């Protein structure tokens, strides 16, 4: 039962396990699930283990049980528009009917679902009448059920009305915001911070210092005194190099900087440096890239265990990377092509990553991204990417 559904979830990238699927069947066989609504909630809580995949689950569910179109942005947009239309229809049937050139009385005969279908068809045909469409009226708006009365003593499940079928709940895609694929924004700051907290080696905490214990005990004439030591936390040094030239990077710089500044306390040292497009023989300590040059040759003197994190879109004209005097700044004449400088950095610091705000599927279209990704392990500047990058930085 539901094997298709299970595999569809798997195909769409929801990490589902056979064990969980069996558990679901256990629930089914015990008669815990008696309706499609029950199935929706129960199977989600059993199969899907992160809210990140709730959205995907909703889509697959709607697809499987209702034939909703899967990951088709156009289709979903139409869905939303159609539903918005339905909302308006419920408030003012006449206007909508007129707008669509239909007879209100005729439309009234249709069920809500038929109406939605009908609206969708119409919308596909005449795409220009969308103006009111993005006005998205509250999702639960049509609920006519009175439930505001409360009973002072007991409660309350009955009060909650869910006058939508599971499929419709699924189609709402309430969990869209929890998807972790979009680029890093301010709102995701807290979550990204959590990822960065992993960037900390932690040794055992409390250790008995045997030598001191023996010494103190002897000193006390045999009265036992145990001495505990806090094990030294060896903290990381981090160099953060940000590409702050060019418009494409602008939205990400403050986010990344704040992110690392917040976590500064957990690092032994955090140095923020800047570059434009790619690195020649200097990085800069000031955002204007003018006053505080830091020649990369000097970095050999740094602790080789320092973690180097580069943030940039890695997109530029190939000659900037490959040519001997490639810099777009006329004054910079390093004599070494930038790609060699990057390789030098990658050799100096064996723990290094490149975070790229460009979405991964676009990486193949820019040649320099591919070239740089060969030198530095490159990750997307998303929560997911950040997590992977941290994992990479922490590996031995």
């Amino acid at each position, binding site marked *: 039962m539901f094997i298709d559904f299970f595999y569809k979830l798997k195909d769409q990238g929801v990490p589902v396990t056979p064990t969980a699927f069996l558990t679901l069947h256990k629930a089914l066989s015990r008669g815990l699930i008696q309706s499609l609504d029950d199935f929706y909630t129960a199977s989600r*809580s059993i199969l899907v283990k992160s809210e990140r995949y709730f959205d995907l689950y909703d889509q697959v569910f709607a697809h499987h049980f209702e034939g909703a179109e899967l990951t088709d942005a156009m289709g979903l947009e139409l869905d939303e528009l159609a539903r918005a239309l339905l909302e308006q229809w419920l408030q003012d049937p006449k206007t909508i009917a007129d707008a669509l050139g239909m007879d209100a009385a005729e439309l009234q005969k249709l069920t809500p679902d038929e109406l939605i279908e009908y609206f969708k068809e119409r919308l596909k045909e005449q795409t220009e009448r969308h103006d009111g469409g993005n006005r998205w009226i509250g999702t639960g708006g049509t609920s006519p059920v009175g439930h505001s009365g409360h009973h002072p003593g007991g409660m309350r*499940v009955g009060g909650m009305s869910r006058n939508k079928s599971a499929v419709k709940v699924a189609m709402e895609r309430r969990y869209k915001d929890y998807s972790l694929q979009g680029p890093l924004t301010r709102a995701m700051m807290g979550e990204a911070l959590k990822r960065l907290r992993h960037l900390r080696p932690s040794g055992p905490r409390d250790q008995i210092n045997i030598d001191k214990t023996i010494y103190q005990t002897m000193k006390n004439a045999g009265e036992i005194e145990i001495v505990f030591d806090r094990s030294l936390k060896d903290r990381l040094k981090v160099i953060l190099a940000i590409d702050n030239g060019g418009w494409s990077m602008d939205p990400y710089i403050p986010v990344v900087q704040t992110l690392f500044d917040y976590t500064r306390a957990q690092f032994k040292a955090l140095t923020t440096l800047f570059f434009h497009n790619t690195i020649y023989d200097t990085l800069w300590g000031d955002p204007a890239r003018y006053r505080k040059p830091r020649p990369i040759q000097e970095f050999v003197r740094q602790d080789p265990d320092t973690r180097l994190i580069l943030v940039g879109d890695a997109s530029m004209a190939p000659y900037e990377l490959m040519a001997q005097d490639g810099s777009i700044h006329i004054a910079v004449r390093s004599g070494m092509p930038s790609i060699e400088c990057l390789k030098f950095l990658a050799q100096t610091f064996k723990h290094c990553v490149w975070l790229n705000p460009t979405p991964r599927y676009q990486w193949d279209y820019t040649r320099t991204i591919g070239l740089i990704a060969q030198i530095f392990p490159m990750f997307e500047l998303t929560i997911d990417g950040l997590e992977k990058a941290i994992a990479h930085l922490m590996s031995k």
Partner: protein
Amino acid sequence: MTTNNFTGASHYVLDAELAQIVNVSMALEMPLLLKGEPGTGKTMLGHAIAESLKMPLIVLNVKSSMKLVEALYQYDTLTRLNDSRFGDSNRDVSDIEAYIRMGKIGQAFIAENRCLLLIDEIDKADTDFQDDMLDVLDQMSFDIMEIDKTVKALQRPVIIITSNAKKDLSDPFLGRCNFHHIAFPDPKMMRKILGVHFPDISDTLVENAIAAFYRLRQIDGLEKRPATRELINWIRALQSDADFNPKQLVKNDLPFLGVLFKKSRDYQTAVEQVRRRVKY
């Protein structure tokens, strides 16, 4: 196994979806993992279930430095050492078991009646803790190494686990739990929640306070957005102010913003925003 179904408690507003999940998890005897923003009532749910099913509640507050053993049992070596030296206690020093004290999970296992074990904020501990706990919860037993004894759960406790962060727990751990994410309550739900906490509150106050509250939550760049708890406290504060008139709220005259915003930067942002809106 139990015929008792969970339907809600006197101070908790339960939505049908969550009730279903709680009941399925209890029937399948699987731990239920709850995630969600702070202030969505994850911890409260544990209390509510215990109250409504009349089970004793045992809360394990996870701390970052916690080792699993602490949650299971503790071997009090220091007391034993002292007892052996001074000999002034009535415990038998040669009997190690007298110095074993049960931790929260241990207590839940040896409880006579089926109880509810609430493991709060598991994400605070490191992954080792979570993975080790897995085995214990799976087997429903653990060994006390010092006395070579196995403690088996007399009654399988109902287990609720909460996690604040959106950080992922390890895969094998998740595999053994049911999962639910509690979304922040929408205004409609919030009205009901307030109804439970303030049975005789005026409708205007509720409406205006909720409207203002959700407006404030939308301010950009807040470090900690106010949650249900803050709203309830805010309404308490408003009620206790004799000069306060609910109609003020509509005009964006919002007193006691400090109750809602606990971080000074957030507070300033909020005050600024509110002031700006008053002008228009």
